[in-house]
């Protein structure tokens, strides 16, 4: 059962991911991204991160991808991009090296040290109890104990984002020094 879920989700994820980088039309790419995000969400559930799964679906697939699509439409850059030609000759070989290298090496490392992961740390996360939100509870507790500073600090981050968006998109006053 678990296996089936994993395989299906993995398939979704990979198909989506590949889609993102091979679909020449940005809109399609965005949609394949959604597929991946869903897959990830599924695996979150499988890993008992229900809250994150929810957030994943809502924030990512919901907000972010929509934002992407919105921008694509806004700028009208939905014209297809020809993937077959590559202006820089070395780019693709390098990409191959990077992709395979990163995947290979990380996988190798992960596999090499699979036995020691989690050595010496606490017990398994308690399985779902009678009130089904223990995961959320735990996150909340963790959030407001260990990570309270980080949590508060996100406010700064978000302020930056907001102010940044304002600064960037305020329309240009016509004037001298145009370049």
């Amino acid at each position, binding site marked *: 059962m678990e296996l089936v879920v994993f395989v299906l989700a993995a398939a979704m994820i990979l198909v989506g991911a590949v889609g993102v980088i091979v679909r020449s039309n940005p809109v399609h790419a965005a949609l394949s991204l959604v597929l991946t995000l869903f897959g990830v969400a599924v695996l979150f559930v499988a890993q008992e991160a229900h809250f994150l799964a929810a957030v994943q679906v809502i924030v990512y697939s919901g907000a972010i991808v929509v934002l992407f699509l919105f921008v694509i439409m806004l700028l009208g850059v939905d014209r297809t991009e020809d993937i077959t030609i590559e202006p820089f000759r070395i780019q693709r070989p390098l990409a191959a090296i990077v992709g395979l290298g990163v995947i290979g090496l990380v996988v190798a490392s992960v596999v090499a040290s699979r036995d020691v992961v989690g050595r*010496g740390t606490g017990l398994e996360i308690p399985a779902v109890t009678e009130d089904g939100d223990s995961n959320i509870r735990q996150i909340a507790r963790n959030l407001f*104990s260990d990570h309270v500073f980080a949590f508060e600090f996100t406010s*700064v981050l978000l302020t930056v984002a907001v102010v940044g968006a*304002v*600064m960037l998109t305020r329309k240009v006053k016509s004037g001298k*020094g145009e370049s």
Partner: protein
Amino acid sequence: MNTVEYPSIDWLAIMPMIILLGGALVLLVVGALTPRWPRSLYAVATVVLTIPTLVIEMILWNRVGHDGPVAVIGDVLAIDRMALLAWIGITVATALVALSSSEYLRREELDGPESYAMYVLAAIGGMALASANEFVVLFLGLETLSIALYVLAASHRRRVESQESGLKYFVLGGFASAFLLYGIALLYGATGTTNLTTMGRFLEAEVFLDGDDAMLLAGLALLLVGLGFKVAAVPFHFWTPDVYQGAPTPATSFMASVGKFAAFATMLRVLLVALPSRADDWRPVIWVMAIASVVIGSILAVVQTDVKRMLAYSSIGHAGFILIGVEAAGHSGDTDGLPSSLLYLVLYSVLVVGTFTVVSLVSRTGDGRTDLAAFRGLSKERPALALGMTVFLFAQAGMPVTSGFVAKFGVIKAAADNSSYAIAIVAMIASVVAAVLYLRIMISMWLSDAESGDDQREKVAVPFTSALVVTVSVAFTLFAGIFPGWLIDASRDALVLVR
């Protein structure tokens, strides 16, 4: 079971950030509600904002002196002297940049509270980054700083270069921080914690058999990628020249001062607090990065014609010098590396702000004239300014009686102390190569004759605020060059980290 055990909150420790944040918000809100403020009032407000911050940072400095370094708020923020040194440096740099950009923004018709708020918010991010004792906080701080910098880089809406630099910085930044984050993840997997102190203790205690630590090391590798990108060390430096050149000059100086300082502080903390037991693994990498940075930075700088680009490459070289200190710090029982790096950062931050301030003045309206030709005849037109620039350039070249010499001397001493002479010699030779570029700027300022059309050029205006910044920087550069004792001692005190 259902209660949350909140951590005790050391308000004083986070007061600087709170002040700055509050100030930034006030600035934003009030600024948004009121019409355009009179000249350079935003800047003044920002400076005013930094004063109490500095005071509290001093108080904290003394407190650490008495009670020793502590990690606060659930051990996520390290309040030790390295952090405080970084905080002070960041605060001062922010104030200087704010001052130097006030007239710039008016000139470029970009005036408004946002930029200043952005500086302040970025500074907060930098502070969090510098004292983060927890990878989550580190990541948040990093992103806050970076995102702010992306915005600042792209903020000159009339210059397409500015937006280009913003885009490049953003794409590559996101790319790099993904690696960083992945590194954190793997470290988390290998050690079961995201807290630097805990991780450090865990790794000290733990013994790894062959291959067991592969994940840990992979994480370390990816972590170094992220950090190396932030400090603009070769081979993660590619963004630097483009972004430095394209970004509005004050933003550039902000990146070069605050950005570098925070990034290096966190790099030192991560490597020395979380991963000291792995020094033998990461030191060689730092060694290579350091040498590559000094050499490539210098060589590429020499062939440039755009001053901002030159300074960008030279900043890569400087990063290399700082990395020499980091490398030294990686040797067991070393007591020079960390202080020398910090000393270098303190001196360099002020230096670079001063330099870029002059550049921003010379670039004239439109922030376009940053090629060597723009500096031609500056000695005739603005002798004092030219003299100031000369001091900065000689300092960057590491000439004695300037802070630059003290900085270089420190790291060289640290390197020699760990008998890594190769790196010291290479670095010094590279610094000679780099001297060429500083000389080239000085040549166009002092030695080259005026050419036709020079007199039609817009005059270089030197507004008071910028003059103030330059003066302060020059004074500091020379003073620290002649009487560096107190700074050296301060950086020495920073040796005791939260562990």
